[in-house]
């Protein structure tokens, strides 16, 4: 039952983090020069027209009052309405989240498969030719920006060898996940950007495990082949899982660049638009969703690590 107690603590901490985050995001959006009045009024509005828009958007009230009202509603599950269009923020987030997920999930799967496979292969033969080649590639990938990777993919797969669409144009009334060809490039771009770091973490962890007396003992006892690999990877996994969950959570942030470049109307893309338009309720809703998703992934990572490492004498670090 220690696990249940630990989990409760973590969830409570995550909720507190989200509340703090909402205050920080609100304050940051307030601090940015300008507001939704300026972005929607355009350059030729008169002062009276600006004042009227400010009142109609409710922006004439003090920031503290608006924040308290917003958080009160958010606690009851109502994220409010977009300042500019009056659309329900929860609805917008639902749409955008499912589009983002269509790209993020395949990218996450590719990252996990590549990181585990290649990380294990390299970690079992540290210093070998295979390991050196992989190190060079992954360091190159880690060092490249998402923008560069995405552009390189565009050049290769849409110009030199035009087999994939450059822009994710989903036919009206359909969803992005129904079109794997549209998902391919953005997902690969994200996976390439993320897998390097995850793979290096697992490689290090596998190498360390393979170096322990316990692994040597197994080898001396004649454990070979798939059984040996599985044993080493399973023991190396808990410490690498933390790293992997951080990489996966980082995908959410990295997706803004990729979503813009491939025109995926996802959550990161919507957030950058909402910030530009100073649409405070939408910025709040989107950033809290991103924050909640990140915390969930990190928590899931820790939980998996705890399950894998349950034979350990000590419970996982209590947050």
């Amino acid at each position: 039952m220690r696990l249940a107690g630990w989990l409760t603590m973590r969830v409570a901490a995550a909720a507190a983090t989200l509340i703090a985050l909402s205050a920080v995001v609100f304050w940051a959006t307030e601090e940015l020069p300008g507001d939704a009045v300026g972005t929607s009024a355009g350059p030729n509005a008169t002062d009276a027209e600006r004042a009227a828009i400010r009142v109609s958007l409710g922006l004439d009230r003090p920031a503290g009052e608006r924040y308290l009202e917003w958080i009160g509603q958010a606690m009851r599950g109502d994220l409010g309405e977009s300042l500019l269009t009056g659309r329900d923020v929860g609805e917008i987030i639902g749409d955008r989240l499912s589009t983002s997920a269509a790209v993020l999930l395949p990218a996450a799967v590719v990252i996990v498969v590549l990181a585990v496979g290649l990380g294990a292969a390299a970690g079992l033969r540290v210093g070998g030719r295979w390991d050196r080649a992989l190190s060079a590639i992954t360091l190159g990938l880690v060092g490249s920006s998402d923008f560069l990777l995405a552009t390189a993919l565009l050049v290769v797969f849409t110009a030199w060898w035009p087999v994939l669409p450059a822009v994710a144009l989903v036919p009206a009334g359909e969803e992005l996940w129904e079109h794997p060809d549209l998902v391919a490039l953005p997902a690969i771009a994200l996976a390439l950007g993320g897998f390097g770091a995850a793979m290096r973490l697992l490689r290090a962890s596998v190498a360390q495990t393979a170096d322990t007396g316990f692994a040597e003992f197994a080898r001396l006892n004649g454990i070979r082949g798939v059984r040996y690999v599985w044993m080493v990877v399973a023991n190396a996994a808990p410490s690498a899982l933390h790293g992997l969950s951080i990489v996966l959570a980082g995908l959410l942030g990295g997706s803004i660049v990729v979503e813009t470049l491939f025109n995926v109307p996802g959550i990161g893309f919507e957030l950058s638009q909402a910030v530009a338009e100073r649409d405070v309720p939408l910025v709040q809703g989107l950033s809290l969703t991103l924050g909640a998703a990140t915390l969930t992934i990190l928590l899931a990572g820790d939980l998996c690590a705890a399950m894998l490492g349950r034979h350990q004498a000590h419970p996982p670090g209590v947050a």
Partner: protein
Amino acid sequence: MKSTTARNLAAAVTVGALLAAAGCSEGDPAGSSKSAERTLRAAFAGGGSSETLNYLAGPTALDFVRAKLVHAPLCELDPKAPDGVSYGVVETITASEDLKTYTLRVRDGVKFTDGKLLTSADVLYSLRAPMLLKGLPFTMLISRNFDMDAASAPDASTVILPAKSPIADGREVICQTTLAIPDKTTEFTTSTPSSGPFTIESFEPGQSTLLKRNDSYYGQAPALEKIELRSIPDGSARVNALRQGQVDFISAVGPAEAKTLETADGLKVTNSELPYASYLQYTMNIKAKPFDDPRVREAFRLAVDRKRIVQNVYYGRAFVGNDIPALGFPSYNTALAQRGHDPERAKQLLTEAGAAGIKVELTAGPEMPGMVETATLIIEDLKAIGVQATLRELPAGQLFADYPAYLSWPFKAGYTPPAYFEINHAPGTFPDVDALVLTARSAVTGQERLTASHQAQKLLWEKGNQIAPVFVPTINAASDRVDGVRELQFPDLSRVTLRN
């Protein structure tokens, strides 16, 4: 032994990755190209989920392009027409002798898609809608000039608008943006009755709109059956979509991208012609030093090499400006000499004003193509006459976000969409110019009005506070199967034809 294991594992992973990649690469690279033959797929910058069917509240070009395809204009600005406007669902607009009352006659037989006849009640409501539905300021031009509470519709085909003060250019005011919507419309949905050449079949904000031909449209029937409007905010993503044949037409192409698209097979690049070019201006605040001295303002204007901006920033796709607005409109003062590039005279003026070697900071942001690049060249030109000039570049969306701050900056970039000079003149800087503009809008004879307008422009040319080096057209690109795009301020796609 260990090495065999590792190699097997590596081989398995490689095969897996290749399979995954092969699985992903299936499918049609052209994406949604299976749509019907007579469907035009057009991409605009659009916006995120803030895109709206309510054109009164939608600030993007896409919102207005879509609205104009769905709701017929009352009338449109047309500098070549005798009245300065071409008529739509309103057949004629006449002004009373004293210029205090305007009478609009509604065209007979225009129907909405729900079968109802369009009457004066609908026209009157369309004119009042910006006030009633809290439209954005650009839609407020009518209520600034007419007393909309006193406006009336005495019979089914007449609307009477009393002007707040006598104006001769009421037609241009009425026709700048107004579209015909049904009386009592309070929200805009896909089922709001339409009076335009197309109706909305589906709409997903920030993604796509599918429009279908309206067979009961009163005007020239469109050749296209459908138009699919796409939002692709990123400029290079728009270009990529066109290159790959995912769309047939894109709007708002950057000058550098236009240059590379010009040589592409099967594509054509076009730009709007005058007067449909935006007035790009760099404003000097005359309340701040050193710009309170007209000699400094003139020196700055003489320092700028306009031809270099046209060539280096716009690759020839821009029109040289003469520091006054509304190039190409009928009342533009063509008698003024084109201001040239004269750094020597500029230095001399600065010395006379005691402002040699002065420090200035120019604020600009990427709010329209080439705004920041032009600012960079202006800074170079100013340095060449000894001014210690620096550029403050703001991220996208910030230049106008805090408008009072914008107004207070001493030297800043801005732009005005193509429009008549007189009705869009913002008073408050030069009282003598304001008085002349008032005369230009209200004098009884056309000659008096034109003389006053030219005089106002002359004053702005002599002592004004704006450097307007270029007028910037909208650049569009399309597959060469596409014909018939009308390149106005925003492209009008209603008369497009598609060849196979």
